């Protein structure tokens, strides 16, 4: 008997906006001028915030911080495609997602300065607290999607993780589960090429991360992660598909971590300046600016206004974050369980 091909797949790559600011109009998502300006303004705000957080860390005013620079399009493009009722399961490098989804920036600083209260989301928003053990939140997203499906709620669930996360068992278990039960979940991998010191090629021998989805029986797509239109479109399409009951999608945002892994890291130990340099030209904010300029949506004055607004918002966030009184030490006893245990009552009495 001759051997037969019993399965094959093709991996799509989506690019809409190039480095010169030219967009493929046939692929453009439906966005108003105000919508496009909003994308730009939130990206500028996120970068301003990121830069300030790094400065605050250096001054010892917040703790270890994981910068997002270079990944603004991946984070803001995807988060702006969400609806209010959708659920987000972030990893620890999603400050752009938090900002775009409406979480107050001062609370993000509050969290990174060591106060859990900074991640308490508003009642009408669902962002799970940041997940530091890599990819271990992927199963939570899957479970929330299963619950939404069971309840008949027409919402989507989004899990964010990086290229390193795709090596974890929980990535496999979570995607496999989502495929089997056809769950309304979108997996967004920000492939920023580095997991601390390990380059993407050392995480997987697969040519793309997107193709891994096919092993779980659903679609994966790679997008230019520095192209906010491509990220927005891919996320919106995947969410629509999820909400129509057509199952999960894996989106690989092909991007680059411009800075160190965290403020506790020194990337010069393991990667060269020559590698980083070309990515500066691929900057997600720069290319949207070029696009907007061509469309008459950008001017020097607009830029000044956007930057001034971002700076004021971040000044305000910094001021607010630093004016918050530290938690009462007794607060560490509460919220272990709903009620204090016998032992905790004793501990609190003797505290």
């Amino acid at each position, binding site marked *: 008997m001759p051997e037969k091909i019993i399965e094959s797949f093709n991996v799509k790559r989506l690019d809409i906006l190039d480095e010169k600011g030219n967009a493929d109009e046939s692929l453009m998502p439906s966005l108003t001028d105000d919508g496009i300006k909003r994308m730009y303004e939130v990206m500028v705000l996120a970068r301003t915030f990121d830069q300030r957080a790094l400065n605050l860390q250096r001054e010892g005013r917040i703790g270890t911080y994981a910068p997002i620079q270079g990944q603004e399009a991946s984070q803001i493009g995807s988060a702006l495609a969400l609806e209010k009722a959708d659920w987000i399961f972030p990893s620890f490098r999603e400050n752009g997602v938090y900002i775009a989804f409406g979480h107050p920036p001062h609370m993000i600083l509050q969290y990174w300065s060591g106060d859990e209260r900074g991640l308490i989301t508003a009642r009408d928003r669902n962002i799970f607290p940041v997940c530091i053990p890599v990819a271990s939140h992927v*199963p939570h997203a899957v*479970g929330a999607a299963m619950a939404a499906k069971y309840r008949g709620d027409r919402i989507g669930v989004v899990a964010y993780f990086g290229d390193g996360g795709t090596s974890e068992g929980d990535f496999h*278990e979570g995607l496999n589960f989502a495929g*089997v039960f056809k769950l309304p979940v979108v997996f967004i991998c920000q492939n920023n090429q580095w997991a601390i010191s390990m380059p993407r090629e050392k995480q997987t021998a697969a040519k793309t991360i997107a193709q891994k989805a096919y092993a779980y029986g659903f679609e994966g797509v790679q997008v230019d992660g520095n192209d906010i239109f491509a990220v927005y479109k891919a996320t919106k399409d995947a969410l629509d598909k999820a909400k129509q009951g057509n199952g999960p999608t894996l989106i690989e945002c092909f991007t680059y971590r411009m800075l160190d892994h965290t403020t506790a890291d020194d990337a010069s130990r393991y990667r060269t300046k020559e590698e980083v340099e070309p990515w500066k030209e691929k900057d997600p904010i720069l290319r949207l600016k070029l696009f907007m300029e061509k469309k008459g949506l950008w001017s020097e004055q607009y830029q000044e206004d956007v930057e001034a607004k971002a700076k004021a918002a971040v000044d305000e966030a910094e001021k607010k974050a630093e004016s918050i009184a530290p938690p009462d030490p007794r607060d560490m006893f509460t919220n272990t369980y709903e009620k204090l245990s016998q032992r905790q009552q004793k501990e609190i009495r003797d505290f």
Partner: protein
Amino acid sequence: MPQNSRKMNMVQAINLALKEEMQRDKDVIILGEDVGRDGGVFRITEGLLDQFGPERVVDTPLAESVIVGAAIGMAAYGLKPIAEIQFEGFIYPAVDQISNHAARIRSRSRGRYTGPLVIRTPYGAGIKAPEHHSESNEALFCHMPGLKVVMPSSPYYAKGLLLSSIRDPDPVIFLESTRLYRLVKEDVPEGEYTVPLEKARIVQEGKDVTVISWGFMLHRALEAVEGFDAEVIDLMTLNPYDEETILGSVKKTGRVVIVNEAPKVGSFASELAAAIAENAMLSLRAPIARIASYDVVLPLPKLEDHYMPTVERIRKALTDIMQY
């Protein structure tokens, strides 16, 4: 109040608890390996798939971490999932989820999200099972603040404790002794009754010695105390545990024997012994005795009877303590 009682074993009692709670509350969902069509390898979930359908009795892929991890996501969303791990020996891939997430979600979100889930899993030796099917690793889970650890010792208490566990707003690991599943039959009421968590129960009162145990070992302890004036305590919830009941009893009797199925080093018996030493030292008339399995890797079935605490070992400890 419950109407009828029937004699049943622990498998039937747990099955009844699940069935009644699923009828009462649509948010209760079961997920795990072979829990649906097969009714679970111990038949705990038998009949539930037919009654409640595949959306509520979910046969999952063979993957412990996502079984617990998905339950965490479901619980945060507002459901009350009950995840079954087929044997405690297979729970380790899910320990990351239990320790880093289930136990912590209330604290790290400052109550914005909670984890009202139950993880049911069989534990313990004595049924001649293959390797990795017989450990008694409850102490591991007692070192995870935010998690409750419950170990029933009989059909009646299994049902009442399981209902409390499902309704509890915090995550509970519910450890069921495989040896006990079909060992004891007793009257179990149909319908509503609960046994509170975080409370120990005095099984029998006594004056001379306090014997503390839980799960299957309670039965060996009860057999061993015949002829002694012993107060026997079934701990039921190991963490957070009912220190007051224990200390109250020890202050009365002045002697303590703790019987646990796990190896002695780092066992929960050690926590109890330490708490008694800290708080009731002056009431003690003899050293505290911990009767545990040996500090060895659990042997295959040919030797498991030699490994676990026997009635004779417990009785010897009681005799020694009374003569001290």
